[in-house]
């Protein structure tokens, strides 16, 4: 077995929408045990890049490697089974199911999709895993509430919980703090930092304070191209990054 220190990698990945090039020949590497953030102004292609990694979009050209395996042509559900979990920018949960069922159905995904006769509640391992995750995201008390009745912040946590339940090796978080108060953002930052002990994390985020405090590395995209990839301190001082994006936010 070859051990890969690089867990997720793209080589020359490009995505065109008609005449518009949203992602332009991006070379990118996420190492094991790393927490990396992607920043960039609106329309820089961050979410499109995420969609390419998670399989919601297929690249026009280039390769995507997960643990050394080319996953370019793999659909989203297969990539999830391999260990690429993602959350979405807009809250994306199962609104009419209870909080518990939201997490449980995700926890079940690796085991038994096409089991038609047995009773779902008999799978103790799946249920226990769901409870464990509900505890971790602080929603155990609200396990029987329909997900649509949860507060906005709780729904954001639930979404991360659903993703965690699929046993990801890499977690792609798309703006986990969007729409949250500064206080809530700080809590999410602590939570994400804690998660990064167990799983490699790649996140897209607008909140600069959040990004700079928790990331090991920051990649900056502009017009679909990587203009810098470095430690937070270096990114702060990078003139190209400053000129395109950070001027008014950090300085």
């Amino acid at each position, binding site marked *: 077995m070859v051990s890969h220190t690089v867990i997720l990698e793209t080589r020359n990945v490009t995505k065109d929408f008609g005449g518009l090039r949203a992602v332009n020949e991006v070379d990118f590497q996420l190492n094991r045990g790393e927490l990396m953030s992607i920043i960039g102004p609106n329309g820089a292609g961050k979410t499109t890049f995420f969609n390419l990694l998670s399989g919601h979009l297929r690249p026009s050209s280039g390769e995507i490697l997960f643990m050394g395996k080319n996953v370019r042509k793999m659909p989203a559900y297969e990539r999830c089974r391999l260990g690429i979990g993602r959350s979405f920018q807009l809250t994306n949960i199962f609104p009419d199911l209870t909080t518990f069922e939201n997490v449980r159905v995700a926890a079940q995904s690796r085991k038994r999709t096409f089991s038609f006769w*047995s009773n779902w509640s008999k799978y103790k391992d799946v249920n226990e895993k769901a409870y464990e995750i509900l505890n971790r995201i602080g929603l155990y008390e609200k396990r029987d509430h329909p997900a649509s009745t949860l507060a906005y912040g709780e729904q954001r946590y639930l979404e991360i919980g*659903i993703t965690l339940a*699929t046993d990801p090796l890499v977690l792609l978080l798309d703006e986990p703090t969007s729409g949250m108060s500064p206080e809530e953002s700080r809590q999410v930052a602590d939570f994400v930092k804690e998660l990064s002990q167990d799983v490699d994390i790649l996140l897209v985020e607008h909140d600069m304070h959040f990004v700079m405090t928790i990331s090991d590395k920051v990649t900056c995209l502009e017009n679909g191209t990587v203009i810098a990839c470095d430690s937070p301190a270096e990114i702060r001082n990078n003139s190209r990054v400053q000129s395109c994006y950070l001027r008014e936010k950090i300085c």
Partner: protein
Amino acid sequence: MMNQKTKAIYSVCLVLGILLLWPLISNFLPLSNILLSEILVFGLFGAAFNLALGYTGVLSLGHAAYFGIGAYTTALCYNAGVPLELCILFGILLGTAAGMLIGFLAFRGSGAYFAITTLAMSMVFYYIACLWISLTNGHEGITGLPKMELFIGIPLHSFVQKYYFILFVVGIATYGLWRLINSPFGKVLLAVRENEQRALTCGYNVFWVKWCSFVFSSAFSALAGCLFVVLFEICDTSILYWHMSGLVLVITLFGGTGRFMGPFVGALVFLLMKDKLSLYVEHWEFFTGAFFVLIVLVLPMGILGSITETLKLRAHKAKTTA
């Protein structure tokens, strides 16, 4: 206080008890054995349809095809002297095969495209039945079947005998559907209904999940079609027409989509209205239509859906005030 499980068991026993004793008391009541058999058949058809619409969120406008294929297969095979049990089995198998094929093609699209594709496919079967006169006898349909009898020697001559046979088969099928909905697969269906994109990102192959649900739905619809022929000993092109697909949709919406027993309640209300109203007015459809509009506007969760939601709300209020 009874827990929910005991309550459910009691209510199932109660309903089964009433249904078993019905033929003894039906002479004194406005609901005959034949009408109740019909309600069971269409209830099962609706429950099968509900698996697709209510539990998977897939609207098919062509379920008449599977019902009709089940019915035609049973009628043709029985006419040819095949034992009734095998006729029903063939009916289910052919209906399922049609569901597999149509589902595979129609799930290339979604929403309105899916609905229209299923409708168009079902009309293909309608025209085959209309035009292949040597086999199906065209619009006249297949009549004059031999007396219904099971191969194991049980006669199904009277409506009471037929009623018990239908009750038995519908009971088993309903139990099967119930197991399916409460299985791990049933939970995946709900996830797909709620949010397809999220289910995909949870690692589920949404296409095959929807396809499987659709195939099960068509299999149970075909079974309902087989029972229809057992009951009425007739099979004509009207059961393949799009009206039948519309009827099952109306029945399901009457009872409440996504409610397990909803379609049975829907079938009860619809067929009872049809039976009673048609005695007095020629155009009874006008009144059922108006009632349908009323249900959709006032009780969007359907009759059973609205009742259970109201009861739940009341229980919740009593709990919070206590």
